[in-house]
Structures are given as C-alpha cells and as structure tokens.
C-alpha cells in the first residue's frame, strides 16, 4: 500500500530505523565505527533525497536499499587499504565442516526438524537467536554471507566485491549456513523453539 508521509513524519521515520540499520551494517562490516559512519551517510543520503521518496516501498526497505550501496562503497574503498576483503583468501580450511561428519560422510549430529517459527513470540525468539549466531560467525564468512543473504547480491557480484573465486564463495556460504543451522539447532531448539 502506498503511504504518503509529510516531510516531518518522514524525517522521524528515517531516524527511527537508525538502530536497525546499524545492526545490519555491523553484521556485514564487523567494525562498529565504520558501520556508524556508513549508517550516518545512509541517513544523510535519505534525508537529502526525502523529496523523491514516493512511498512505493516501506521506509525501512528504501533505507536498506540505500544502506546496501553505502556498504558496497565502503568495501570498495576499504579494498584499497592494507586490510582488505581479499584477505578472505586465508579462510579456506574445512576443519569445522570435517567435524560435523563421520568418515563415511554421515551426520554426527543430525539436523533437527524445525517447526515453522511462524508469527509472534516464537519468530522473535528465532530471529533473536539467529542474530546472536550471526555475530558468532567468522568475520570473513559473515561478510560474504550478509552480502548474499541480507543484501541479496548475486553470487557473481559478491565474488567481484570480495575478490574471490566462485568455488571459494561456495565454501564460505556453505560453512556459514552449516554454522548457523547448527547454532540454531543447539540454542533455539534448546529454548524449546522447535520439535525434537
């Protein structure tokens, strides 16, 4: 539904989402100060273009769209600095995955049957545990995982930004997904969120 906001309402609405934008930026950039800078740039860009906001998308959706490009700009800028996303090349071992399977490639701890988290309290529980699990991912896996799954960049675009091969990206995304599902199996199920 298209909702028109007057300029003051829109400014208030933009400011209201600052905390959520900071959480998302921090998950990707893994650097609180840089995330704050990027969110500040996002909010300023949104305020500067508030007149062009036509209400076709939710304010949060519009802001996340701006944030995505600000994060990409930050990554490109940082890739020219000594500590770069190309450092991703170091994270290629699969010891963590090896530990999940026996010699025949069968699960050591079988994935649980999650019920649909659904709506309301249980979904909030799921999302809260998921966010905690995301913070526990290795930095490099988390960086490419957020680009792919939260900002919804195509895999090829993530490879270009991270300066990694497609095979390497597959490994990083796989280990991130395996880590998150295992983390939720232990922590969310343990809280009674899913059936055994």
């Amino acid at each position, binding site marked *: 539904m298209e909702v028109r906001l007057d300029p003051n309402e829109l400014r208030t609405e933009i400011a209201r989402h600052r905390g959520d934008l900071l959480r*998302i930026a921090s998950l990707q950039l893994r650097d609180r100060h840089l995330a704050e800078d990027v969110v500040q740039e996002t909010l300023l860009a949104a305020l500067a273009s508030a007149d062009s906001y036509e209400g076709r998308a*939710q304010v*949060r*959706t519009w802001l*996340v769209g701006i944030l995505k490009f600000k994060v990409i700009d930050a990554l490109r800028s940082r890739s020219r600095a000594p500590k770069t996303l190309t450092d991703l090349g170091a994270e290629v071992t699969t010891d963590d*995955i090896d530990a*999940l*399977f026996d010699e*025949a*490639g*069968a*699960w050591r701890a*079988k*994935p*649980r*049957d*999650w019920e*649909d*988290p659904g709506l309301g309290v249980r979904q909030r529980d*799921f*999302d809260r545990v*998921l*966010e905690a699990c995301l913070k526990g991912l290795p930095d490099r896996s988390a960086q490419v995982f957020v680009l*792919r*799954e*939260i*900002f*919804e960049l195509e*895999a090829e675009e993530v490879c270009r930004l991270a300066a990694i091969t497609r095979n390497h*990206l*597959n490994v990083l*995304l*796989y280990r991130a*997904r*395996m880590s*998150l*599902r295992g983390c*939720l*199996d232990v922590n969310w199920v343990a809280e009674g969120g899913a059936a055994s």
Partner: protein
Amino acid sequence: MNCRQTSQLLSEALDRALTHEEQDEIERHLAICPPCANCRKQFQELRRALRRFAYPG
C-alpha cells in the same frame, strides 16, 4: 551421494541452478534421509529469516 555431499549441494542450490543430474542425486538421497531433508528445510528457513531481517513485513 552421502550426507556431506548432499548438504554441500543443498547450499549451492541457493546460489546457482543445479544440473538435472545433481537435482536427481539430491532427491534420491533426501527420499531416504530425513536429517538431510531437515537440513534443506533449515537452509530455506534461514534464507526466509534473513530476508525478513532486512525487509520485515
């Protein structure tokens, strides 16, 4: 195909179109392996939850 190989392909299926052969291999394995079927549902739920994270409602 074992569980490890299946879980790898289940992850890749979220990022690229699998070949018909890969898809057949997965389906054969999932038909006899409830834990891997759970793994697929978990990967799908993770994707839904993460999209919700940025774009709720």
